[in-house]
């Protein structure tokens, strides 16, 4: 059995089934004897807990360091503004303005300030909750309402990972900074897609992202249906990417989802699909 394998479940388009795949995969992993963790990195709208129903045992806040300028010490040189990539600190006439919610917390301004006028204070952005769900070690982040700065919280969720040998990351949708924060450095990525033109278009963007990051990955087709499957097969052949699983489009899956049941336990046949997927991921990732 592999040691310390981290697999992220991502998608270009939203609502394709990342949480369904990652939560069910975590169950399969525990059954297969892994010490598995499920990390919900979709911190803007975490929903894995609705299905895994964890008993939470720890909760702590996460914050980013933001600059506080001492106007008496400040020599108005503008070095802080020069180093800031996000316009979170700006020297304007004879004052220095800071914009707290623009700050990514890199600490650059306080490092370059020649007058030592900048100190850091903490700005809370969200919380992390940890617990356990039927043998799965459960961790998720909850971003504060109205907060735009999710990557620091996502990184904190990943750092909260406990002593497990298989980590499954439920990534946010899309291809922007939060997704990068969730998948950078993982061993393998599963891209969940629908076999529709819309789903495949965004799958293409996600594949470009993986290529850019140099992370190996494969595709899982969710809501597979005969009418559209050929589109997905053609697309994946053209992009030279493997399809590791097909989850059939079934009303029973949607019904289980709607009441927060894991398809893994609720629907016959689903368990086999997930076990098979786990085996394929192991084979592909360890290769």
């Amino acid at each position, binding site marked *: 059995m592999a040691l310390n394998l981290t697999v992220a479940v991502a998608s270009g388009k939203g609502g394709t089934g990342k949480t369904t795949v990652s939560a069910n995969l975590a169950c399969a992993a525990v059954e297969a004897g892994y010490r598995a963790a499920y990390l919900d990195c979709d911190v803007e709208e975490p929903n894995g807990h609705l299905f895994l129903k964890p008993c939470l045992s720890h909760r702590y806040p996460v914050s980013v360091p933001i600059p506080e300028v001492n106007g008496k010490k400040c020599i108005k040189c503008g070095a802080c503004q020069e180093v800031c990539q*996000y*316009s*979170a600190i700006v020297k*304007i*006439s004879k004052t220095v*303005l800071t914009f707290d919610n*623009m700050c990514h917390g890199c600490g650059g301004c306080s490092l370059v300030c020649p007058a030592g006028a900048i100190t850091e204070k903490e700005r809370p952005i969200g919380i992390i909750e940890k617990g356990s769900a039927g043998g799965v070690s459960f961790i998720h982040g909850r971003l504060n309402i109205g907060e*735009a700065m999710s990557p620091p919280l996502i990184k904190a969720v990943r750092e909260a990972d406990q002593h497990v040998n298989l980590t499954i990351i439920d990534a946010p949708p899309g291809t922007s900074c939060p997704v990068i924060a969730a998948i950078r450095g993982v061993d393998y990525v599963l891209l969940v897609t629908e076999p529709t033109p819309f789903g495949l278009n965004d799958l293409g963007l996600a594949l470009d992202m993986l290529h850019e990051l140099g992370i190996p990955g494969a595709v899982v087709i969710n809501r597979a249906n005969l009418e559209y499957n050929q589109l997905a097969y053609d697309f994946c052949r053209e992009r030279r990417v493997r399809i590791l699983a097909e989850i059939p489009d079934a009303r029973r899956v949607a019904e289980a989802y709607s009441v927060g049941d894991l398809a893994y336990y609720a629907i016959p046949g689903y368990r086999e699909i997930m076990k098979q997927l786990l085996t394929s991921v192991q084979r592909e990732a360890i290769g």
Partner: protein
Amino acid sequence: MFIKTINLFKKKPERVKILKVAITSQGKTLESKVDPRFGRAGWFVVINTNTGDYRAVNNQKSLNANQGAGIQAAEQVSREEVSALITGNCGPKAFRTLMAAGIKVYYGTEGTVAEVLEQFKKGALREASDASVDSHWA
């Protein structure tokens, strides 16, 4: 003696104060259309209202910024040492930055840069007391 004292209080002829105005513009000339956006405006036409001289300042850096375009644009306008800015809309961060720079903001978007300048000179534009649109971020 009395007359001399009065002379002391007599005002010296003041140097004519230069009033520079920046107008957000879609192009580089006075005939260009006003750009209703501030942070992501194409150009700033900076005009000396006494002499009528003007020059166009490129806003490329703010246009390409991922975030904070309004702050950067305000910073750039303040470098031009203008006392007033005329634009269509202004968000809260840009407005705060412009206030810190002591730049008055006027909203006016109808027509060309020259036309808006004329309205400004006639006092037909209202001075903004607040941002006109919400933040794109939080």
